[in-house]
């Protein structure tokens, strides 16, 4: 339940460790609510959410789960480096990690800039750096690539790939279908329900569509046809 209406209905999914799971669907379909439930900031009205073996939001998970909200949540009146340093201190990592996290999001040139003077996309990157610096086992990213330039988007997805290969579990939401190919696992959502839980390859095979955009449309049509039949 979110804002007095049912945001997620009968969602049962399992997310693989050490892989990137993409959460795709139109805005308002419940992506953020699902992510918030995983992080443990959402009061879940019914059902259970287990993360890395503990109930979502348990104190022992606070070291292990990183969350990047859709709107950048950083302190605008602090410099980039101070923002990242603060989150590093909260999670107990070193200054060395701070520089690394800032480089990872391509903000080296803006280390000393006040966050308020940055563009929207740059702020999103700083927000991401604040999560990366904690080296979480599970990284939950809500539309991390919105408004980023294409080069940086590719770089970030490479980075996510590397993180996944080194054992980090990533759950990434997006409404850009061409990003789905970076994910090993796909969750297609609509109106608070999971329409499909698949892989990009299997989705193409099942639907016979080449682009994932078309495949998604195909599944929606099939779903509504089944319901009206």
């Amino acid at each position, binding site marked *: 339940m979110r804002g007095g209406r049912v945001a997620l209905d009968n969602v049962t999914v399992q997310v693989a460790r050490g892989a990137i799971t993409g959460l795709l669907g139109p805005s308002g379909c419940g992506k953020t609510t699902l992510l918030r439930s995983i992080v443990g900031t959402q009061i879940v009205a019914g059902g259970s959410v287990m993360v890395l073996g503990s109930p979502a939001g348990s104190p022992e998970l606070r070291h292990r789960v990183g969350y990047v909200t859709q709107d950048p949540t950083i302190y605008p009146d602090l410099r980039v480096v101070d923002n990242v340093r603060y*989150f590093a*201190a909260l999670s107990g990592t070193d200054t060395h990690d701070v520089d690394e996290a800032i480089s990872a999001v391509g903000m080296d040139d803006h280390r000393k800039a006040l966050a308020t003077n940055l563009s929207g996309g740059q702020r999103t990157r700083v927000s991401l750096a604040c999560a990366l610096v904690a080296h979480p086992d599970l990284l939950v990213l809500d539309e991390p690539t919105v408004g980023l330039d294409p080069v940086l988007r590719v770089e970030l997805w490479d980075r996510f790939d590397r993180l996944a290969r080194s054992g980090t579990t990533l759950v990434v939401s997006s409404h850009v279908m061409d990003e789905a190919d970076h994910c090993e696992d796909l969750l297609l959502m609509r109106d608070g329900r999971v329409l499909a839980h698949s892989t990009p390859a299997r989705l193409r095979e099942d639907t016979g569509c080449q682009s994932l955009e078309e495949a998604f449309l195909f599944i929606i049509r099939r779903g509504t046809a089944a319901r009206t039949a």
Partner: protein
Amino acid sequence: MSALTPRGYLATTARILRQLAGDHRSVAMILVAPSLIITLMYFMFSDVSEVPRPPGAPSPFNNACLIMLGVFPLIVMFLITSITMQRERVSGTLERILTTPLRRLDLLAAYGTAFSIAAAAQATLACVVSFWLLGLDTAGSPVWVVVIAIVNAVLGVGLGLLCSAFARTEFQAVQFMPLIIAPQLLLCGIIVPRALLPDWLQWISNVLPASYALEALQQVGAHPELTSIAVRDIAIVVGFAVLALGLAAATLRRRTP
């Protein structure tokens, strides 16, 4: 795990102070405004002070200056804290830092510490100006005046943190100032002595922290030694501050609908 706790607290205190220090205009206003207004009062009372008064009675400036030294930290810290915290709630940074290992009490203690440091600087400057330049004279030690001013500031921080939970916007947060502070100032005995208030208003006055803060300042103004009433009053104000901080902690929820 427990070793991390002071780190989160210290990092948060430093972060809040850094944010404050980055805002030069606010720092200037926090530091200078009380001193300027007390100076204004000094000139306001300069002719009145020449009027003969019964021997032993404090000068009107002394009285008013003591009141201002107590009231300023309360108002300023209430405002700063409620708006800063409200901002942190709305911007989503509060939700985010509560997903980290930071404990809620560490966060509140950090806010309390950071703003109390600001308040201490403010109170010290205002007291230095009042005692040295404007000739404020108290029977008790000026140190106690500073102490009470800082305790008032902590009370303001506690009330501000609590009220921020009930404000959805910064606009609403500012409106809480007259609602929370004005009745306390009206009923604390500055305008009408508490003994002359109707019974039911005396009862209300008895449960408002500013009544005790002002009484403590008046005790320090009139007696060379720290009286037991002053000690009790300071303890009560500290108690109110801790209560407000505790209630504020209850409003910091990690999970929201």
